[in-house]
């Protein structure tokens, strides 16, 4: 029993954070796009913490925005708190984090999608991919609808053969008691894909009115918040605080007494969980010398009393969860509204993907988000927009867009996944980036907006504003360098900044290099004739102050890019290269790197193997050239 549901350029399966970005990007690039999801009430749902951003993750949101994606704009409309973290550290690691009104976040995203031309939303459970001549050509749903398409993007999150675990109880389920997707997982296996089993978890939610906030510390938002999107200039959103408390010795005692009921330790959980996101029982066991752990209480929205208990992710039985909650100062009488749980799910081994996020095995099929072994909304959205862009470009007969490790955290994330794979749910950290100083929160637009414009996701109007900002910043830096100053003109002002007086003449750029001298010094001595806003002044200051460190990293990047530009032909047969070590041969064949740069990052491929590969490629290219 089936019927034809129509033809599309791009079909996106799943409407989480990856799916939304993928569908919006493809539709905005002019592709007829269909997004199918099991439950249309769950578009852009936040099944875990009601927050977006933080170090590395917040950077990704800025990058998505710089490319023309939606996450930044959406959270700017729906935040209930904004905080810039790491302000005491260098500008590269300043990181914005928002608490979201999770319901408003969903509704706003859904509304945006509904109003986007070329984009169709459908509720349905996809059970099978259609394959014709080795290329994906559509999908079939549970109700028998057949949708045809040139490309398909899988963004199934934790739904594939999802299984919820809590104490002795297990049942097949997606997050938050949604229906899991079982048949699609089987279909992927039949198509020859290698899947792994991962695990993640979420803490309980409690009722606000049963918390005694007087026993906790308040964590307010910033008084003058900055925003994620370069388009957002102001906001009237009212901010709500979070609250900090700690586990007690009683908490730890309860956990230790109930370890025999913890699926983490009884062997019920088979999937690999993330080390950076351990459950509370894991923390208490592994760090037994720590007498208390932080617990943040976070509101889930303006119009709800549910509070998220950050730090208390657990799969202990429900009765133990309640006892644990009530052992925490401020929560002695707390009412638990939803229990925490662990969830196991199937994920793709991501080394089966090209850096474009297209699968190697089945052309036309892309995967993005948690299905690729990552964790986090931002990581998912970052992959989503790239998969959407590259599916659309494939339909349009264009080369894929691949960001390298010096262009963005998105580039670092995808390169890590497709080159090294991951043996636990992958989370971005700023320490994963080699060029952290170049991948700043403030310069995401400088790095990526020209790319977003070329792709067609950045409007003319926004691009004009961007080029204007860039030009003003450059002109100002030149002006500061050319503005000569004498000691008597600046020493008084320098003293006010606790900066040493100058003896000979200098220029403003040289003085701005001093750590203690801020841009307001320039405003005082020689204000710019141009209208520079705070964002531009900040840019001028950062580019001048950290020029030495930035230059060092740029030199490394130059070398990296040379290696990235050496492409490896797709038809290369590594078994023909007699000097390669056996391990290198196997790994190179499996990963099929697109460039020497990518090849050199595969574990087990040595510098000698890379040298040999270079010699072989030179030989190959000369022979190919000779043949004409």
């Amino acid at each position, binding site marked *: 029993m089936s019927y034809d549901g129509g033809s599309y350029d791009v079909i996106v399966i799943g409407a989480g954070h990856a799916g939304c970005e993928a569908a919006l990007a493809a539709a905005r690039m002019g592709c007829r796009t269909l997004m199918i999801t099991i439950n249309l009430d769950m578009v852009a749902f936040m099944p875990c913490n009601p927050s977006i951003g933080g170090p590395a993750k917040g950077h990704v949101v800025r990058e998505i925005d710089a490319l023309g994606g939606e996450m930044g704009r959406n959270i700017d409309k729906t935040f209930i708190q904004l905080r810039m973290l*790491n302000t005491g550290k260098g500008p590269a690691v300043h990181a914005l984090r928002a608490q979201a009104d999770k319901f408003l976040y969903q509704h706003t995203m859904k509304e945006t999608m509904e109003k986007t031309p070329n984009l169709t939303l459908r509720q349905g459970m996809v059970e099978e991919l259609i394959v014709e001549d080795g290329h994906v050509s559509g999908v079939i749903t549970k109700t028998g609808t057949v949708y045809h398409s040139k490309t398909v993007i899988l963004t199934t999150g934790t739904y594939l053969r999802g299984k919820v675990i809590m104490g002795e109880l297990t049942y097949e389920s997606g997050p938050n008691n949604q229906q899991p997707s079982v048949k699609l997982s089987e279909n992927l296996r039949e198509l020859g894909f290698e899947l792994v089993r991962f695990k993640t978890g979420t803490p309980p939610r409690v009722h606000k009115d049963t918390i005694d906030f007087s026993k906790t510390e308040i964590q307010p938002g910033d008084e003058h918040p900055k925003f994620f999107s370069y388009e957002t200039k102001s906001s009237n959103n009212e901010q709500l605080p979070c609250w900090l408390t700690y586990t007690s010795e009683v908490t730890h005692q309860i956990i230790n007494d109930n370890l025999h009921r913890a699926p983490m330790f009884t062997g019920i959980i088979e999937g690999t969980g993330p080390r950076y996101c351990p459950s509370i029982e894991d923390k208490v066991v592994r760090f037994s010398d720590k007498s208390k752990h932080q617990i943040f209480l976070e509101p889930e929205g303006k119009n709800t009393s549910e509070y998220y208990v950050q730090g208390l*992710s657990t799969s202990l039985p429900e009765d133990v969860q309640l006892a644990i909650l009530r052992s925490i100062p401020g929560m002695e009488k707390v009412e638990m509204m939803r229990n925490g749980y662990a969830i196991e799910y199937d994920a793709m081994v991501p080394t089966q993907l090209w850096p474009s996020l297209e699968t190697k095995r089945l052309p036309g099929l892309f995967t993005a988000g948690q299905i690729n072994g990552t964790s986090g909304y931002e990581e998912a959205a970052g992959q989503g927009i790239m998969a959407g862009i590259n599916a659309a470009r494939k339909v349009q007969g264009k080369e894929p867009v691949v960001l390298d490790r010096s262009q963005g955290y998105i580039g670092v994330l995808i390169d890590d996944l497709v080159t090294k794979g991951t043996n636990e749910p992958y989370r971005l950290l700023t320490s994963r980036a080699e060029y952290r100083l170049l991948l700043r929160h403030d310069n995401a637009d400088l790095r990526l907006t020209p790319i977003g414009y070329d792709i067609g996701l950045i409007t003319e109007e926004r691009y004009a504003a961007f080029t204007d900002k860039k030009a003003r910043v450059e002109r100002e830096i030149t002006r500061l360098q050319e503005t000569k100053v004498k000691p008597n003109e600046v020493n008084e002002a320098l003293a006010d900044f606790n900066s040493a007086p100058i003896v000979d003449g200098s220029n403003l750029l040289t003085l701005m290099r001093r750590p203690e001298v801020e841009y307001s010094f320039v405003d005082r001595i020689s204000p710019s004739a141009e209208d520079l806003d705070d964002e531009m002044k900040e840019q001028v200051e950062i580019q001048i102050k950290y020029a030495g460190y930035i230059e060092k990293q740029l030199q490394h990047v*130059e070398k990296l890019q040379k290696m990235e530009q050496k492409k490896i032909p797709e038809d290369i047969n590594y078994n023909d290269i007699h000097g390669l070590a056996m391990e290198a041969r196997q790994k190179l064949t499996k990963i099929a790197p697109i460039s020497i740069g990518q090849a050199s990052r595969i574990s087990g491929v040595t510098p000698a193997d890379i040298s040999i590969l270079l010699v072989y490629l030179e030989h190959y290219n000369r022979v190919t050239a000779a043949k004409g």
Partner: protein
Amino acid sequence: MISDTIAAVSTALGEGGIAIIRVSGPQAIPEVAKLFRSRIPLTEAESHTVHYGYIIQPETGEQMEEVLVTVMKGPRSFTTEDVVEISAHGGVISVRRVMDLLLQQDIRLAEPGEFTKRAFLNGRIDLSQAEAVIDLIRSKSDRAFSVALKQVGGSLSQRIQALRHTLIETMAHIEVNIDYPEHDVEALTAEFIKDKSREVMEGIDKLLKTAGEGKILREGITTAIVGRPNVGKSSLLNALARDNKAIVTDIPGTTRDVIEEYVTINNIPLKLLDTAGIRETMDIVEKIGVERSKAAFSEADLILLVLNASEELHEDELALMEQIHGRQALVIMNKMDLPPRLDKRKLLHFFNEDSIVPMSVLEEEGLDKLEEAISALFFGGKLESGDLTYVSNVRHIALLKKARKSLQDAYEAADMLVPIDMIQIDVRLAWEQLGEIIGDTAADSLLDQIFSQFCLGK
């Protein structure tokens, strides 16, 4: 296309004659010019000219070595890049001094076979040679790898690992402060980074001191003397040491059971290892000795198997010969002064005629034949690992100095209250540079450290 400038010793290691150090790359001429004092500055020298002068210590201007320097500008050079060749008086010490200075500039040690690789990639070598170039890279790399492995087990490696451990703990601390800003981990202070940097710098200084001039000649062709007990191994070692100039003896820190002697035979530096008799044993004390001698045996570049010619071949010796088969080895038929009972034909099964040397160590007969046989192997190009050990040591010193410089930068930055994520750049660089010495640069270990050192999570 290739932007690094590289250097390597391009002649075999020996005690006499001339050693040539080759430098190639875009910075070859200006970087060598910083170290070279002559009538015409090197930067103004014409292509394909030779210049007499001195390699100097750039900071002090002190004259280090008398050298001849040849300039060949690209594309008319072996690699088609700018090439500078420095001819120094052979000895190990002078070559090392020059290399040491070069590697402290913007020059790195060439990878195995890299000059040839560049010549090929730049179109200088015929296409038909591609396979030969690949073979060269492979064999040289494998050899370098086995030499590097040899050193990983040593005390140098342990000390470097200890320093790296201090660094990675510090790095994990910095990273947690950055990636988990709200976590209740100890806030990081500039003082903490300064203390840790200083601690590691002191460790590096100690290493550099012990790696200094005094013990330079510890490298050589590692030669294991093996055989059953009482066949005359120690006597052979003593005879070789007596007959030839012993340069360094009895290095502290080496195993007590394996005796080391450094000798130079016809300008070839040898590190002689006398191993305890190889024989399976139940005696615990002797067993340890045997284990160690097996290790010495397996890492040797050259094996001298000593047999007692006045006895029939023992089954242990047959087993030993099977193990040795295929490696560079000479067989010494000792005690030729006694009535012979050993059947030489059995040896021809495993060794060719040229590698069997009849001797009487007691009567000092046949020692010259042994020395000739060793020379023949060396100059026939069959022995070369001394070269690589030597070169990798130069590399170690250069990397130690670079790591120290990075930590100095980190220390000064911390002193000026530069943000911690910037200081981290230099700390991480030092950690990577130390890692290069022992062949460990895996970045993932930082994450492992973060998650094992700190309790993080949602």
